[in-house]
């Protein structure tokens, strides 16, 4: 029998999750005077003190190699991954889906590439344009003021280009492009592919007490000076300074609790330090646990009133699951051999990128993708100089091999596409009826299928990347993949941009939350992660999660003031 320990304090707002959505909600609502508790499944972590920034590979015996909870290498800032010990998930027969979860303060804001792209005007009304999927109940104009405020608060570099569906922003100056980025741009220009400065939430000027980037190229390890965006340093710390925020780490939420009037009263969670169950009371509950984790929480919060899960009278919780499409082609480039030694680090991401450049063109797939690219003389580490047999020397050993390694170091580039998937009936998640995790919480089961749309988009990516490589005189590592291999399309969940599982809409019969991310069925319950997204444009989700959470939170503050909650 589980004994639930109840806390006496009733918070104004209980937020589940401390990433982009939860961090922003905590920031906005504590500033507005609400007493807020953030419940985080993982431990405390702050890049200001915990990052391995500047550690050389030879300073650890693993040389930066991966571990089970650091699949991107031991120095990566994110604790989590596609597999977490004791927290399984399942996939339906024939479905392939990988679910990335972070377990730490700041959640996945410790992982991402800081690529911060606003959704554009078309992205909110695609169904009206091509008949596929659904329109959002809100427009770009509704979102613009919040995107502007996120730019001002968090900081972002980029340039105003006046592109049709890539809105301008309030940008800090972009960093000078790296040599190979300039070189690729020449090829892109020749092929008619738009190539402009990247848009990343890394400071190139001091902002709100945070210093500018020092160009060590290690954003993924977490920034010791908080010069890039992650939730703890940029949102939770100032929220903490208001005196209104309580952070409850190592606490895995089991369910949202309800009263007889159909209002949320707080959440039950497992205190991972003690193993005991606890309850925390809140007048308002905001779920920001990530799209699939929030959906899981709703589906697991069953009661006589909500037999199909909480806020699920539409049956849409867990449906409309989307991830970005992805494909990658890398290669080696004769011209990049024997480059003069130089510091190639720059910021921890791209200084140039290629936004979707074929809007409105007739193609055999809908929507589009953007291109992220990079390579060159990065810091060597675990796995350095692997695969020499695939370079012109074809292998070898001894003095000549050593010369070859030296000559080919940094002579590689890779191109990655991130594109839009259309929600489909075969891609969703639900509760697995037979499996629980180590806390006894029923786990998610994923169903996944790409349509031809996504597969044909991957083909187009492959062709584009190969044309660019050819234009640069390079040699791709791999041959053009076949249709049978889906043209190298990344697996579902592999791009780590899951959205759509608690989607927003005007109609309570077909959507989970309204345009303010407020549950249709439960007035004091909100969702502030990627769950409410109606579509999944090629733009990485974080900037829109931040803007949407800011919009939701300010609405909640207004409603509290007006006594509407």
């Amino acid at each position: 029998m589980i004994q639930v320990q109840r806390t006496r304090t009733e918070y104004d707002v209980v937020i589940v999750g401390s990433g982009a959505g939860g961090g922003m909600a905590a920031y906005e609502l504590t500033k507005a005077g609400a007493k807020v508790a953030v419940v985080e499944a993982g431990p405390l972590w702050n890049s200001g003190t915990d990052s391995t920034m500047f550690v050389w590979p030879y300073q650890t015996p693993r040389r930066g190699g991966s571990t089970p909870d650091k699949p991107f290498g031991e120095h990566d800032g994110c604790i989590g991954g596609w597999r977490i010990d004791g927290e399984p998930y399942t996939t339906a027969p024939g479905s392939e889906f990988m679910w990335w979860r972070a377990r730490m303060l700041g959640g996945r804001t410790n992982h991402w590439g800081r690529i911060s792209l606003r959704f554009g005007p078309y992205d909110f009304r695609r169904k009206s344009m091509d008949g596929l999927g659904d329109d959002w109940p809100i427009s770009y104009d509704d979102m613009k003021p919040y995107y502007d405020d996120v730019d001002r608060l968090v900081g972002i570099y980029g340039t105003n280009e006046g592109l049709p569906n890539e809105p301008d922003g309030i940008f800090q100056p972009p960093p000078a492009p790296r040599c190979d980025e300039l070189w690729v741009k020449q090829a892109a220009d020749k092929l008619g592919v738009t190539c402009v400065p990247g848009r990343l939430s890394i400071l190139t000027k001091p902002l709100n007490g945070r210093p500018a980037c020092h160009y060590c190229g290690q954003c993924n390890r977490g920034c010791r000076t908080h010069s890039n965006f992650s939730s703890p340093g940029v949102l939770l710390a100032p929220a903490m300074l208001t005196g209104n925020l309580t952070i409850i780490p190592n606490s895995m939420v089991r369910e949202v609790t309800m009263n007889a009037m159909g209002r949320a009263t707080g959440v039950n969670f497992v205190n991972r330090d003690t193993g005991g169950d606890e309850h925390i009371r809140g007048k308002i509950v905001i779920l920001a646990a990530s799209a699939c984790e929030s959906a899981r929480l709703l589906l697991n919060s069953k009661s006589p009133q909500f037999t199909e899960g909480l806020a699920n009278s539409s049956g849409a919780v867990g449906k409309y699951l989307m991830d970005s499409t992805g494909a990658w082609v890398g290669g080696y480039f004769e011209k990049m051999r024997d480059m003069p030694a130089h510091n190639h680090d720059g910021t921890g991401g791209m200084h140039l990128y290629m936004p979707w450049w074929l809007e409105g063109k007739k193609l055999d797939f809908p929507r589009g993708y953007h291109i992220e690219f990079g390579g060159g003389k990065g810091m060597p580490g675990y796995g350095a100089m692997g695969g020499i047999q695939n370079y012109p020397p074809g292998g070898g050993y001894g003095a000549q091999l050593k010369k070859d390694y030296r000559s080919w170091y940094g002579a590689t580039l890779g191109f990655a596409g991130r594109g839009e998937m259309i929600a489909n009936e075969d891609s969703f998640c639900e509760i697995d009826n037979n499996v629980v995790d180590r806390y006894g919480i029923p786990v998610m089961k994923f169903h996944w299928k790409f349509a031809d749309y996504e597969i044909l988009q991957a083909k187009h990516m492959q062709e584009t990347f190969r044309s660019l490589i050819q234009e640069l005189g390079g040699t791709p590592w791999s041959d053009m993949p076949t249709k049978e291999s889906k043209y190298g399309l990344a697996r579902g969940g592999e791009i780590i941009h899951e959205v759509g599982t608690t989607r927003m809409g005007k109609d309570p019969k077909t959507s989970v939350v309204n345009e303010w991310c407020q549950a249709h069925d439960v007035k004091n319950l909100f969702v502030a992660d990627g769950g409410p997204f109606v579509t999944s444009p090629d733009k990485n989700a974080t900037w829109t999660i931040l803007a949407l959470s800011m919009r939701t939170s300010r609405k909640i503050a207004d409603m509290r003031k007006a006594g509407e909650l």
Partner: protein
Amino acid sequence: MDRRTALKAAVAAPFAIAAVTNAEAEQASLQVLGLFEAAGAEQAQAFKPKFFTAHEYATVRVLVDMIIPRDENSGSATDAGVPQFMDFIATDQPNRQVPLRGGLGWMDAESRKRFGKTFILATVAQRRLILDDIAWPKKAKKEFSHGVTFFTSFRDFTASGFYSSRIGIADLQYIGNTVNMNWQGCGSAANAHLGVTQPARG
């Protein structure tokens, strides 16, 4: 509520540290670097492998230096601690153990077949004859496929250890992993190599 009160300090304090000028940030970063430098000082005592047997370890030492020897620019794979690295990784990633042990066994078996002695007891010229047959996958004869698979992986493993070492990183002339407040691109020499020029800053 002790746990929670403590958190206020834990989270807010680093933010206060961050609220400084760029110069101070640079200094703070350099201090951090110094800390890690001190912590990373390598222990040069006699090394006892945890995974490799004494014979395997001797073979590894010979093989890695045949792959990456000392030259006029830098030391060899053993100078860079590659055998120790391999032993650590083999215990850290147990799925490597069978291919590694088996591959070293293949090398000995091949050497015995050809020369009647283990790989390390063969002459340098004899060892090279074996490597010549397995070091270029596309040119290799089918009968050596197992040796090719092992050697391809072992060469990558050697490179991984060597080029993540202090010696290897210096050999590649990597410049970076440091505070570089004045980033202005890769510099004119690198730009010239690729035939590009840095656009004027607006």
